[in-house]
C-alpha cells in the first residue's frame, strides 16, 4: 500500500496488514519529528507538502524497484503531509519478507530513495522562523541545516 495522507499514520495497522504465513520477517521504519535545538531556539514542528499525483507514483515505483531486487511479499509506504508535531511519524515503511535480510535491506532502500526522488518537501518551523530543508530558504537568520 502506497499513500500520502494528512493526519496520523496508523503504523500498527500497516504492520498487521503485512503479516503473512509465508513471511518470517516484517521490518518497520518510522521517521519521526526530531526537536533540534540551537542557541536557545528549537524546532516546533515540521510541515510537509507533496506534488501529487507524481509523489504517489514515485512511491509506487520505489515499491516496484524493491520487488525486483529482493524477495519481499509486502511493501507499504505511507508519507504524511501537512503539520507533523514532535515525535509524530512523518513516514512509515513496512516490508514483509520470508527472511530478515531482505526486509531490513529493502526498508533502508525505501527511505533512501524517498529522500532522492519523491517530490515531497519539508519546512522546519522553529520558534524564531522557518526554513526549507535542502534549499536554504526561509525566514530564520541562521538558516543552517546541521
Amino acid at each position, binding site marked *: 500500500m502506497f499513500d500520502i495522507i494528512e493526519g496520523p499514520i496508523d503504523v500498527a495497522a500497516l504492520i498487521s496488514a503485512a503479516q503473512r504465513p509465508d513471511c518470517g520477517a516484517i521490518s518497520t521504519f518510522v*521517521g519521526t519529528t526530531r526537536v533540534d535545538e540551537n542557541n536557545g531556539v528549537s524546532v516546533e514542528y515540521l510541515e*510537509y*507538502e*507533496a*506534488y501529487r*499525483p*507524481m*509523489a504517489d*507514483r514515485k512511491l509506487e515505483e520505489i515499491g516496484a524497484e524493491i520487488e525486483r531486487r529482493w524477495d519481499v511479499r509486502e511493501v507499504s509506504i505511507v*508519507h504524511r503531509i501537512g503539520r507533523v508535531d514532535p515525535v509524530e511519524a*512523518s*513516514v512509515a515503511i513496512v516490508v514483509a519478507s520470508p527472511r530478515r535480510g531482505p526486509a531490513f535491506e529493502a526498508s533502508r532502500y525505501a*527511505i533512501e530513495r*524517498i*529522500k*532522492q*526522488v*519523491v*517530490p*515531497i*518537501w*519539508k*519546512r522546519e518551523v522553529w520558534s524564531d522562523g522557518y526554513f*526549507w*530543508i*535542502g*534549499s*536554504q*530558504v*526561509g525566514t530564520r537568520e541562521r538558516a543552517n541545516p546541521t
Partner: protein
Amino acid sequence: MDGIKVLLFGAAADRAGTRETVIPAGNTTLDELWPVLAERHPDLSPMRDTLAFAVNGEYARGDARVSPGDEVAVLPPVSGG
C-alpha cells in the same frame, strides 16, 4: 486555457510568492521557459542550479519540449522522510 501551467513547490513557491502561474508561451523547452519564469519571479533566480523540473508529472531535462496545455513543475531539492 492557453499557455503553460507552472506549479511551484516548497522553497520555490516561497520565493516566487505563488504556487501556480500560467506562462503564455507556445511550443518551447524547459530551458527556454526558465528565463520567462525568472523574469516574472526574480527571487527564483538564485535557486536555479538547485532546481529540478517535471513535465506532466515526470522528471524532465532542460531540453524537454513543452507545449500549451502541459503542466510544468518547479521542484526544489526534495526533502521527504
